[in-house]
């Protein structure tokens, strides 16, 4: 068995483990790790192909190796983005209480300039969390959301909701 074959088999195993983990786990962190295992398997296959493609003089084919570098960067960036979203979600859940899998209730606000932080960068639960709390209420319908919205929204950003945007303004109207 050549080393290239051995590495290929290892890579197949890693891909299998990664897919298995990704499909079976619900926990986001485990899925991110599984994703990286899947990525490791893929990159190892590139390594094996590079070794197999060794021609006279060269220890290995440089093209797959160049691709692996890009692939690693992409996988790293994806993992970082995923982790930052997980952190953001955890911060929001800590603020709001677990929202539960309340599903795809689309926010009624359509105003991107006023919904709170949309860059996926993980920031501490700082400046605009209050607004996010308010928004999460605005997504669902029905009057029973109004009190919660009022509490969370008013508590954090220290300016009247009416001055913000239309949906929030209306929310406070409904609350009256």
């Amino acid at each position, binding site marked *: 068995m050549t080393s290239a074959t051995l590495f290929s088999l290892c890579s197949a195993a890693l891909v299998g483990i990664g897919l298995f983990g990704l499909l079976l786990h619900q926990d986001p962190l485990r899925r991110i790790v599984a994703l990286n295992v899947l990525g490791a398997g893929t990159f190892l296959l590139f390594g094996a192909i590079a070794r197999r493609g060794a021609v006279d003089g060269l220890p290995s084919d440089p093209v797959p190796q160049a*691709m692996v570098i890009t692939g690693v960067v992409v996988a790293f960036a994806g993992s970082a983005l995923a982790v930052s979203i997980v952190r953001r979600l955890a911060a929001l859940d800590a603020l709001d209480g677990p929202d539960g899998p309340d599903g795809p209730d689309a926010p009624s*606000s359509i105003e*991107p300039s006023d919904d709170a932080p*949309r860059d996926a960068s993980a920031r501490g639960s700082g400046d605009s969390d209050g607004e996010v709390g308010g928004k999460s209420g605005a997504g669902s319908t029905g009057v029973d959301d109004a009190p919660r919205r009022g509490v969370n929204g008013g508590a954090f950003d220290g300016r009247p909701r*009416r001055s913000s945007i239309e949906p929030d303004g209306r929310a406070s109207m409904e609350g009256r």
Partner: protein
Amino acid sequence: MSALAASVGTPSTAGAPLIVGLVALPMAAALAAVLLRRRAASAAVLLSAPILVGLAFAAAAMVLSTGSPIECVLGAWKPPLGIVLRADGLGTAMMVVTATIASAVALFAAATERRGAAMRGTAPGSSLNDAGATPGPADPPPGDHSGGPAEAGGEADGGGERQPDAAPERASATFWVLLASVWGALNLTFIANDLFTLFVALELLTFAAVPLVCLAGTPPALRAALRYLLLAMAGSMLYLLGVALVYGSLGALDLSLIAELIAPGTDSAPRGVLLLALVLATTGMLVKTALVPLHAWLPPAHAGAPPQASALLSALVVKGSWFVILRLWLTLGEVPGGRTVAFALAALGAVAILFGSATALRQRSLKLLVAWSTVAQIGYLFVAFPALVAAAAPTLATEALRGGMLQAISHAFAKAAMFLAAGLLVERAGRDRIDALGGAFRRMPIIFAAFAIGGLSLMGLPPSGGFWAKWLLLQATIGVGAWWLALTILAGGVLAGAYLLRVLRACGAEAPADLGADRAVVAAPAAAIAPDRLRTAIVLGLALVSMFLGFAAMVPAERCGVRRLLRSEPITQLDRPIEVLPPPSTPHGAAEAAP
């Protein structure tokens, strides 16, 4: 035009700056938007938009007139080692569509921003808004949406006074960065000519699309974004695995090179591995395209975003990964066993049409209904595949390709119009419920009409682009003997009619008497009720394009070189006279099939 006489196989490099600009300019605009503050960020994107529209149309015109694709050999390194960008007819057509829709969305976002700023600028609580507070961009005449970015770019600078407000400022700047990134990534996807550049382009697209889903900042939106990101990354890895297998067996990444290496008669290629690679890469891209068993991430992600982001995601982003699948299959589709896989893809597409439409029918939220309709319409994109790989029948393949492209393009316009219209309807109704839409017909008849027109295209009523797409797809599926696919296409049209009728009936109903919509309308500040002519015109314009694509879309069959896809016509040219289904008279295609 001497185009027909020009040999199809000799690519020209004269237009190389055009296609480089089409990728570099949006990326530069994205970088500028990162560095600049909010208003400058939107100005950077809005100013580059008309240039990009011009570049896209110029590239399309060049491909059309020279009859050969535009190539750009990066750094003068030829393919086995280097990278070639190649804009053929399919790619330029998609770039024109992207440019048109993205600039319409940019204008819409700018108008939304100005309204938001105007409303923040007025004294809180005052329900009387003087004319000065109503947004200025209502001035441009309705009707033209693609030519407008320039003046809007200027207007965006002259907006009313704004109160310093850090969070919206950052959010808005983020949207402009993402819009430009999506634009650049899509353009790169459409002109990439090797498997690895396609991978890079798709990753750029994913990393721009995921934050678009996050834009609302709510926990449901973040959950949807996380699910989308994890699945999309898994899809990328599967695609990369396929790329590794192709490279391992052929030693080539360039699509043209691969096509030569596996051409009939060369028996060196290991076909089994190639089939596996094709299946892996296609599966990976299917995750991103959200074909049915892998669709679960799409409705929450698309429905939870702000309307301009939803429009980008639903109209354009899913088409990027679909386009990669198309490229893969046009190159590798004829490996033994490929036909079976193509039929499996079409079967999944059929399930998507029925399941997506049926689920859309049951939605209570308007934006979710539109998102599920995207799931259904994506199914149509795959119905074409069995005919596409029918090597023995090049005319069928041409028809399937044309139907698929037309479906992608008309759905892009229709869905962009519908998501933007849905955004305006929901904004006005105050909440995203179909039964809260009562009175919308009376209050905003033009938006209502735009939504309906977009819907007619989805249903496939003539003369919409959707009608011709479905007609071509019907012919293609019957041509390969798949009558069940043809029936599904018809049933999908009926179901689309049913779920659209639900929305239209809700809009036509009287405003409900219970609290909710009525009170919301009464309570909404006057600025929200003020006429919103720019946004209305944009939505109506997009809907009309999707409707009248049918008059423009008939690509002469002989000019659509399927085999190696060197050219086809930019399908969005609106001034072309209608040509009713040109007869399949293309011995030309057959000649091309045997290189």
